[in-house]
């Protein structure tokens, strides 16, 4: 599977998922278990993505002080109710600065 195929698959799949909601007969997707699963899946997946992208590298656990500090800066920005883009900028700037100072 090449990268282009993954991109096509995700693009078509994401569109189909959106269209399903608009077009599907209600009863099919309105089942309480399906609904609850779909509401909770993003929470677990997003948390997993944060953990994996912060603390692993090429299939192994790795502690990267700069990236960890960047994520910490994002937490501080979120606690201070900073806008979305400020949160992202804080993470990038702190990560870059820690790399500069720890060489």
């Amino acid at each position, binding site marked *: 599977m090449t990268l282009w195929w993954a991109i096509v698959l995700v693009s078509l799949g994401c569109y189909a998922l959106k269209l399903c909601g*608009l077009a599907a007969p209600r009863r099919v997707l309105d089942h309480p278990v399906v*609904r609850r699963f779909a509401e909770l899946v993003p929470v677990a997946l997003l948390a997993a993505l944060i953990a994996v992208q912060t603390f692993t590298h090429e299939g192994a656990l790795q502690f990267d002080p700069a990236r960890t500090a*960047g994520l910490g800066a994002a937490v501080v920005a979120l606690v201070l109710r900073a806008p979305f883009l400020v*949160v992202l900028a804080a993470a*990038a700037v702190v990560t870059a600065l820690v790399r500069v100072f720890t060489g």
Partner: protein
Amino acid sequence: MNTATRDGLGVGVAVGLSGAAFGAAAVTAGLDVAQSCVLSLLAFTGASQFALVGAVSGGGDLLAASAGALLLGGRNTLYGLRLADLLKVRGGRRLVAAQGVIDETTAVALAQPTPETARRAFTVTFASLYLMWNLTTLIGALGTSALGDPGVLGLDAVGPATFLAILWPRLVSEPGLRGLALGGAAVALLATPFVPAGVPVLLSAVVVLLVVLR
């Protein structure tokens, strides 16, 4: 300018700007500029796009990476269910409107007092966000390709920070979900040494299944 239009433009332009972060993350992960732009044009749902390129950057299994992105895209199906009664679109217009069924358009549309203003809010948010997201994806991708090593600018921290910013409001409003989030993160980290990259994130969905079916 009425409230629905103002709300839509505000969210569309502000959130649309973070397409630059996606373009940067995609190129950092090893996608080229065209691949980054195709994802923003066709997939057009931020969390799934970030998930795919994040898994790719880990040198992960592409099928697992795609499955993770699609699982995240599944919430848009629920939004579609909520919006179907409100938008009442059919035929070709439904095919176009479907592409706009995402977090932000749903949030702004559902916040409006009447079906009429909800439809306008949906259209304005979708149009402005789609234009901004794709424009800034291109700028972010081009800028990052010109840069060389994105690690120097700390761009590898932008992906996780994006996910955290998306997740944060839910953890604040529903403290009961924090255990689930920690569980999902723990499962993914524990599985990392043993399975191909991309799979740990999927395993965290299993935790959800266990919670739901308990």
